Each structure stands twice: as structure tokens, then as C-alpha cells.
């Protein structure tokens, strides 16, 4: 019988070495440095929370060289930051997590010091964005049980065939989270283009509420969003939204939770006038609201 355990061990080490050339050290906070993963020639993607400063950022290359890097942009909601530096490292094969399955072996790579480091685990869950705390906009979160060694944030999570599934962010409650490639692609492309992530803004505080049977029969949905507050001079106020209105549809999209509205407020609707279907006094109405831009810090 071939020595399957030795072979497994050699393959894990070979995978680590193969992708290690695309994992860099990111020095952008006071404490321990963290990690970053090569996205493209001269572009590194890392976790936003490890980039504590906007200037004086350095990256450490696998060959030991240390380079000055520029912050291209950051997105706190998805915990992604993009850096640029003059380097020529291999771009790893990024893959979307649709190919991943719960139970598969994965390696987490990091480079908080000079050398590559790795931990092994399995994919614990593939969660959709719906189950996340509100406001966090990712398509999916990969949960794994890999150990997030100090400084692993921003490093790559790799599959058994050496593809990068995403970058690792901090563990919470004993599970490790990975931001998947699909989210990274969307955010990185926007950051490279605009230097920021644009999101639409209405200016309403809203909570999900169960609709009356009569309304449900009419519109075919069981929940809507009760408007609890309207910001002064906001797009919602200018469009005529009042406290007590129930929002049913935003731009043809049914609203059953605040997350639905957040998802609807993508950058492409900024400055556009969109129809919002509401219930007011038991009657359906359609308001026309011109979406604003949400200002991030």
C-alpha cells in the first residue's frame, strides 16, 4: 500500500509552497503585521481591519524584500482593503466558492513574519449573506474551522487543488470566516475604479412588519418594512416618505427585511429616480424617490 499519510502530508506542504509565493506580509497597524494575497500584478487584497492607517504601509514579499505600498481604497462593510505596490509576484488562481462543498479540506495561509505559515481545516458552512449581521454586504461567507493564527487576517484560504477561495478575516465565536472570491472581485474592482464603494442612500429607519391579510392577498408578500424614522433633507423625505408608511417594493424588488433594502441600494441606482411601492392608510401608493449616495467615513 502506498504511504497515503505521507503523500497527504507532502501534498499539503506542496500546496502551501505553491501558493505561498502569492501571500505577503501587510504592515499597516501598530501591533503584529497581518497578511495579504496577490490579486493582480501590483495589487494586494487584504482585510480592512488590519489596515489601521492610510499611510506608511509596507508589504513584505516572500523573498524577504520590504516595499512601500499605497492604500487604493477600503470597504469596512465587507472588510476588504486594496493595496498597490511595485512588485511582480505570481497571481494565484482565484475561484468562486460555488465549487466548494462543506466538509472539504482547506488550508489557511498567512505571512505575519518572514516565513509562510499554514493551518488546516474543513469547510464548516457556506452561508448566504442573509444570515449576517445587518449591513454586512457579502454574497456568501465561508465558515471554516481553520485556526486563525495571529496575523492570518488577509491571507488566502486555499482548496485542495490550490485555488484561492477567498481571504481569511477574524474568527468570531471559534469559527473562522473567509470573504469569498465573488465578493472580493466585486469590491476590488469598484475600489480600483473609484477608490471607494458607492452605495445608495434613502434615509429611512425601517423594520420588518407582518402585513395584514388583505394587503398580503393584494401584493403577494407577507412582510413589508415599517418606516420608523425619516432623516431630515434625505432622499426619502424629499420623495414624500412618511413615518408610518410600510415599504413594499423598491425599484420592482420586494422588501421583506432591511437587508433586502440594503441589497437594493447598490451603486447603480444612485441619482436615479426609482418607484417605491408603499402602504399608507391601508391603500397602496407609488412614490418616486431619487436615490442619494451613502457617505462612508
Amino acid at each position, binding site marked *: 500500500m502506498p504511504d497515503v499519510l505521507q503523500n497527504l502530508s507532502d501534498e499539503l506542504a506542496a500546496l*502551501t509552497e505553491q501558493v505561498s509565493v502569492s501571500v505577503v506580509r501587510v504592515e499597516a497597524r501598530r501591533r503584529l503585521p497581518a497578511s495579504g494575497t496577490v490579486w493582480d500584478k501590483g495589487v494586494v487584497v487584504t482585510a480592512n481591519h488590519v489596515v489601521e492607517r492610510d499611510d506608511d504601509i509596507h508589504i513584505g514579499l516572500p523573498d524577504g524584500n520590504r516595499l512601500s505600498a499605497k492604500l487604493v481604497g477600503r470597504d469596512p462593510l465587507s472588510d476588504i482593503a486594496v493595496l498597490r505596490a511595485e512588485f511582480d509576484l505570481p497571481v494565484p488562481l482565484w475561484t468562486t466558492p460555488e465549487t466548494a462543498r462543506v466538509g472539504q479540506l482547506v488550508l489557511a495561509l498567512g505571512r505575519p513574519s518572514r516565513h509562510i505559515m*499554514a*493551518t488546516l481545516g474543513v469547510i464548516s458552512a457556506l452561508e448566504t449573506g442573509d444570515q449576517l449581521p445587518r449591513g454586512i454586504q457579502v454574497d456568501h461567507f465561508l465558515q471554516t474551522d481553520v485556526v486563525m493564527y495571529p496575523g492570518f487576517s488577509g491571507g488566502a484560504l486555499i482548496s485542495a487543488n490550490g485555488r484561492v477561495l477567498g481571504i481569511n478575516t477574524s474568527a468570531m465565536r471559534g469559527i473562522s470566516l473567509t470573504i469569498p472570491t465573488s465578493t472580493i472581485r466585486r469590491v476590488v474592482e469598484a475600489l480600483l475604479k473609484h477608490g471607494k464603494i458607492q452605495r445608495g442612500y434613502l434615509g429611512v429607519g425601517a423594520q420588518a412588519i407582518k402585513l395584514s391579510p388583505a394587503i398580503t392577498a393584494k401584493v403577494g408578500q407577507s412582510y413589508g418594512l415599517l418606516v420608523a424614522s425619516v432623516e431630515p433633507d434625505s432622499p426619502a423625505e424629499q420623495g414624500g416618505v412618511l413615518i408610518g408608511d410600510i415599504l413594499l417594493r423598491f425599484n420592482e424588488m420586494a422588501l421583506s427585511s432591511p437587508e433586502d433594502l440594503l441589497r437594493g441600494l447598490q451603486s447603480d441606482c444612485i441619482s436615479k429616480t426609482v418607484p417605491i411601492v408603499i402602504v399608507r392608510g391601508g391603500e397602496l401608493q407609488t412614490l418616486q424617490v431619487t436615490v442619494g449616495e451613502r457617505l462612508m467615513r
Partner: protein
Amino acid sequence: MSILEQVNERLSSLAAEARRSLVRILSGRAWRQGSGSGTIWHSDGLIVTNAHVVERSALRVVLHDGRELAAELIAADKHLDLAALRIEASGLPTVVLGNSKQLRVGSWVFALGFPYGVDSGLTGGVVIGSGADLPEMPANGREWLALSLHLRPGHSGGMLLDAAGKLIGINTLITGPDVGFAIPVHVVKRFLKAQLGVTEAPSRTARPDSVVIL
């Protein structure tokens, strides 16, 4: 057989082989007993463990076959956290020494010991990194193997083995529930050579100034 079954088969046979060289170390008397693990280094009764495992007197060693023997502390270095014991026995099973200087990050390893006193408790994982510049450890020149596995109290002094079942380290400490640290076997070799002049065969003439008798 599926690959997973083959891995299981191989791991359990390596573990069964290696645990013959694992010993339980008891110390103290009556109500103040301590216990830890040790690794048979030489068939003539040389055992390696951590210095923190042998801090009490009345040292005894329990072999895999159940024999309990009195042990003599012949060398200890608190800075390295290594100690050597001698027992009156011969023909003991030993493990093959591996190469801890060329361990590959991500490679598979497993540890044996007596976690919370449990007999030959095994935990497996991968090498996170190695060397003297690991993020969690003080930069005092000591070399470590950082491991993604679940060492627990009682694993101290036990064996860390590679995928071929070769000894690559001595389990020593943890920095959290999921990260363990072992002293690389090349450091153990250096310790034994410096303290006892042991290269392969053990010597009965320990240098007096380095011997700590508790």
C-alpha cells in the same frame, strides 16, 4: 479502500507503533502527585521529557507494558524546558528520529501524550511554522515548532511525530486551545550532547555541574 480510510489505517498503525515508546511520568507523593509524558530516547533507559514535568521528587516512569519503574533525573535545563531521566531497563522500543530542521509548513504531524491523564491521547494537525521568530513567542532565540493541533496539560514531554512516524519534537506548551508548541528534535539532540555527551548511546557519567537533583 477510500483515501480517508487509508489515512485512518496508516495513522492508527503509526500511532500504535509510536505509543510503545511513550511513557507516563509520575512525580510527588500521595496528594501532591504530578503526571506528564516522556519519550524513550534510547533502548537502555534514557527518557526525554520537559523540565517542567519533573519538578517534583519521587519520579517514576510507567512503560507502555505497564511496568512502573523508579527514575533518576540525570539532566535538566529550565531555559530550554528539557530534562533527561534514566530508568533501569533495557531493550526498550524507540522511535526513529526525524529531521526537524527541514519540516515543511503545512505538512501533517501528530502528537502523543497523556492529556489530562488519558492514556496515549493523540491529536493531529499541521505545522504552522517553525523557527525562532514566530509571532506569538518572545524573541529570545529559542526555536519552536508551531502546530495547529490540540495539545492539553499532560501532553508535555510526549512525542511529536511526522507523517512517517518519525520523532520531530517534544510537546511543550500551548498558547491557546488550538495552537501547540513543540521543541524541535534537533534542539533535544543538542541538549543531550551538551548535558550528557550523548550522541546516540547514553552515557552514565553526567557532568556533575549540570545535573539537577530534586
